[in-house]
């Protein structure tokens, strides 16, 4: 068993046109910036992958990461809860020009839809959004006198996530609040690709410290000293 891949380029080579792609992170925290940029580089060189649907809490910030994907023109649709940031110019321009679709999902519903997909649960009921415009067209039900909205699972073809430690079995840990959506997305995609700051042999992570068990992860690629998206945004970096 060895899920490690030696280069970033190889790790994202299978992501195809029209793919539904989950990208871990919340704002810049836990954002797999090197995997995203490798994918953008491939698009610029080959025109693929295009028409990608991206699932993330946000819709990018500044001119790096998801914002750079959008700016490059490879994103057809965003599924997110909060497409607003300190500099959301890339998304705003495309959205207001009708050049990108948006499915707006409440944050907790987004997380639970992803978790449900990973857990094999096609739909669930939540009180969130009942009576609001985000519940229009969705079935509702009353349980014990309270109203709930039916929400469906959210699956993806690929997930790209950022871990701290990873081993060759795909077991992962995360750094600080960089955990956020990453463990859920690992579960919900057909193929999960993790970049980790340190790749170790099986046994190199204390089993009690494993956050994402390797069964949810397909490929691990080591990126020593990864860049931090928020710092890139604040220093005006452009990819």
């Amino acid at each position, binding site marked *: 068993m060895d899920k490690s891949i030696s280069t970033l380029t190889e790790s994202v080579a299978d992501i195809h046109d029209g793919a539904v792609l989950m990208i871990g992170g919340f704002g810049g925290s836990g954002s797999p910036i090197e995997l995203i940029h490798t994918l953008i580089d491939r698009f610029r060189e080959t025109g693929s992958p295009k028409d990608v649907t991206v699932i993330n809490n946000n819709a990018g910030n500044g001119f790096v990461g998801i914002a750079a994907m959008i700016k490059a023109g490879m994103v057809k649709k965003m599924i997110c809860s909060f497409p607003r940031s300190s500099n959301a110019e890339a998304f705003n321009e495309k959205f207001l020009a009708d050049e990108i679709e948006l499915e707006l999902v*409440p944050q907790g519903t987004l997380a639970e839809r992803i978790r449900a997909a990973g857990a094999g649960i096609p739909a669930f009921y939540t009180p969130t959004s009942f009576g609001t415009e985000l519940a229009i067209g969705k079935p509702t039900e009353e349980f014990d006198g309270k109203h709930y909205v039916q929400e469906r699972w959210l699956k993806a073809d690929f997930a790209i996530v950022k871990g701290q430690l990873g081993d060759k079995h795909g077991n992962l840990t995360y750094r600080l*609040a960089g955990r*956020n959506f990453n463990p859920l997305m690992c579960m919900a995609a057909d193929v999960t690709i993790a970049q980790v700051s340190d790749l170790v042999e099986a046994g190199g992570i204390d089993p009690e410290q494993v956050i994402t068990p390797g069964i949810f992860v397909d490929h691990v690629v080591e990126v020593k000293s990864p860049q931090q998206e928020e710092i890139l945004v604040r220093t005006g970096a452009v990819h």
Partner: protein
Amino acid sequence: MTYTKLTNAQIAWRAAQDIEDGAYVNLGIGFPEMVAKFQPEGREAVFHTENGVLGFGQAPAEGSEDWDLINAGKKAITLKPGASFFHHADSFAMVRGGHLDVAILGAYQIAQNGDLANWRVGSKGVPAVGGAMDLVHGAKRVAVITDHVTKDGKPKLVETCTFPLTGVGCVTRVYTSLAVVDIEGGKFVLREKLSDISMDELQALTGATLHTDGPVADLSVPEL
């Protein structure tokens, strides 16, 4: 009569007085975050942020931020002893599952039946909802802190919200720049008001009937 409305800091101070020792609390992004500054002596609340942290403290000194350690507003935070990390599904299980004691949010409008509108004012621009629609469900107490009226003087406490709803019948108490108002049985019930504002003046600034079911206390807040 002339009166001086409370500052935002004073509204936040008043809301903080109702947070008990040991409470688990979520503060909305922006103005509600100020409530954390005014915890009464001897009480310790544990603050929750949607992106997966319990037990965070103040912002770090400028230059010592770690941008993997942020709150839901994407601001850098620090941890207090006893803090924990968790993923987003667990974070919102805490929210919807009834585990939070208090959620405090801002508002565009609050209706007398407890409906809240706080996520967008119309259909133009880029919509963004974040965790607001989740937060209004599940916390044992959902409170709002807000100016009593809008910037152009229109009531924020109304019979029916005209802006898009965040949640239905979810708010139980409103702390404003003029008063403390509970929502009970589909009515606004006045609990406290500034001593210098008359009932008639307060009612004139409120878009639905203010009821009373006993004495109305003075809303008394220190200079901050």
